[in-house]
């Protein structure tokens, strides 16, 4: 392909440029590059996903009469969901959970860590980073055991340290617990992302700001944040979607006590699995998907408007 590419303007690393076919890929080769991934996704992701959408319109159950004679029920599953008060309870809890632990918790803590550790070096930094990463890397089922051990009513670590034996954290403050749990698990991602983003902020701008007498937080506000705005957005979007769909809190509280931490993923699990109501579960998953879509669109809108 001998397409001439225009030479781009003087290089300043802007992070959201239009695509520029600098390698002369051309449309055909580009599609060939995307091909393998697309094939895997189409076959193993798209196909089951569409089937699931179809399932959501039936009353399919894994066992029982409805398994042998599945019938098409149209939007009845959706109607049942929307008229079920536990669904709305679940939705409300999920919003709180995502907002507090994802958008606020992980982002803020991750950013604080990234910002604070810029100047810190040596063993202090490595240890702290290692701890944060260790929390993230460990598999979910192990997470649950660690936190149950921490919060155990009788001999748990937290009660021992605070000298409050017998306090049932998981029963008394379940939402706080899972919010903190999720922050513990996920902060590493934000920390890494912001750390890289911060290191890409042009030092010259920071230097000028400092010479002009700006205090630390003013530098932050006027130089750093505008530079990494795009990253804040990407980070927050990913974290929102991940936190929305995370299931591990179930291992801590099983949605309890009495539904107080029944976030949407737990709600779906508890309707679909014990009852085997896969049709209903599929419909609920679709609802979750649409909510995710809504969130993603919102982010895209905010992202575009800031350009």
């Amino acid at each position: 392909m001998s397409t001439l590419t225009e030479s781009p303007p003087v290089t300043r690393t802007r992070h959201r440029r239009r695509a520029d076919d600098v390698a002369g890929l051309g449309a055909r080769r580009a599609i060939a590059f995307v091909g393998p991934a697309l094939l895997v996704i189409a076959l193993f992701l798209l196909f089951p996903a569409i089937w699931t959408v179809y399932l959501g319109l039936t009353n399919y159950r894994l066992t029982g009469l409805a398994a042998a004679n599945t019938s098409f029920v149209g939007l009845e599953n959706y109607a049942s969901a929307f008229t079920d008060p536990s669904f709305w309870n679940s939705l409300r809890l999920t919003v709180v959970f995502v907002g507090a632990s994802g958008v606020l918790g992980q982002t803020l803590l991750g950013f604080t860590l990234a910002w604070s550790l810029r100047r810190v070096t040596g063993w202090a930094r490595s240890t702290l980073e290692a701890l944060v990463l260790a929390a993230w890397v460990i598999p979910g089922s192990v997470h649950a055991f660690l936190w149950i051990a921490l919060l155990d009513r009788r001999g748990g670590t937290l009660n021992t340290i605070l000298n409050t034996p017998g306090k049932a954290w998981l029963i008394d403050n379940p939402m706080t617990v899972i919010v903190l749990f999720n922050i513990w698990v996920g902060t590493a991602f934000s920390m890494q992302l912001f750390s890289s983003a911060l290191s890409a902020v042009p030092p010259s701008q920071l230097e000028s700001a400092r010479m002009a007498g700006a205090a630390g937080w003013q530098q932050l506000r006027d130089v750093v944040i505008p530079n990494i705005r795009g990253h804040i957005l990407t980070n927050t979007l990913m974290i929102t979607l991940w936190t929305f769909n995370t299931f591990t809190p179930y291992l801590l509280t099983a949605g309890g006590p009495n539904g107080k931490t029944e976030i949407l993923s737990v709600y779906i699990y508890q309707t679909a699995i014990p009852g085997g109501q896969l049709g209903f579960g599929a419909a609920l998953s679709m609802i979750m998907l649409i909510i995710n879509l809504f969130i993603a669109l919102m982010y895209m809108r905010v992202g575009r408007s800031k350009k």
Partner: protein
Amino acid sequence: MTTNIDMKLKQPTASSHLLKMLGRMAFVLMLVVIGLFFAIPLMWLVVAPFDANPTMAVKWPEWTLSNFERLLQNPYALGSILNSLLLAAGTMALTVMFGTLASYALSRVRIPGRDALLYGMLLLSSIVTGTAAMVPTFQLMNAIGLINTQTGVILVMAGGVLPTVIFILKDFMDSVPKSYEESARLYGAKPYQILRDVVVPVARPGIAFIAIWTVVQVWGNFLVPYILLRDPSSQPAAVMMFTFYTESGQADLRLISAFSLIFALPVLLIYFFVNRKFGFRFYGGIKS
């Protein structure tokens, strides 16, 4: 060009010195508290496996290695770690290769409907990894004949992970400056060579990060391998973890704690090793 003139606007006074000290102390204190927040829950993992009679409490253990001995006697325990490694490596290899190709192309070439495609795939990947898509996935693998194969598991997990990987990598690729590619092109390099020799080395930290992210996702995945694999000797550790319960559903903490440690270690080691080698920087690029 900056000069190194030290432009202090005020002479230091005693009180501003004190404030600075307090500020520093508060800073250190904050970091210590955060450090403790992350460290304390990890303590159980360090003590319980070595305890002859572990409970959910973190207590000074009755030191023993018997839990590990029992694990070794279990015919499936160690094999499952190998299976996890196999699945993780396979998925990672596939994801890195296809993902890098795809994200590069999507970043550089304006394919119509690109954004919609990306976001669409990203959202779909959230339901297929859930319980609702269990039956379709099972039936699909049955039909293709990939049921009960580790290849099948790898493909399904790769399918679930690729959209996110492409999304993140494309973002990263967008920020890699094009000047090098242009120069390489001027020297007559083909697109594939440009990708391999120019872009990938620069993008390496980002690629390393999503490689690790993929490994972490695969490592902890229970549902997909459980549904698709019959033979326990091909099951990964995430599934094996749940076998250490008694018939009444009671957790055998001796085995679970020891296995948790062995389960968590490889990922930790892989992470730190890769970090040491590559360092995780997202939007590194060339600093101006």
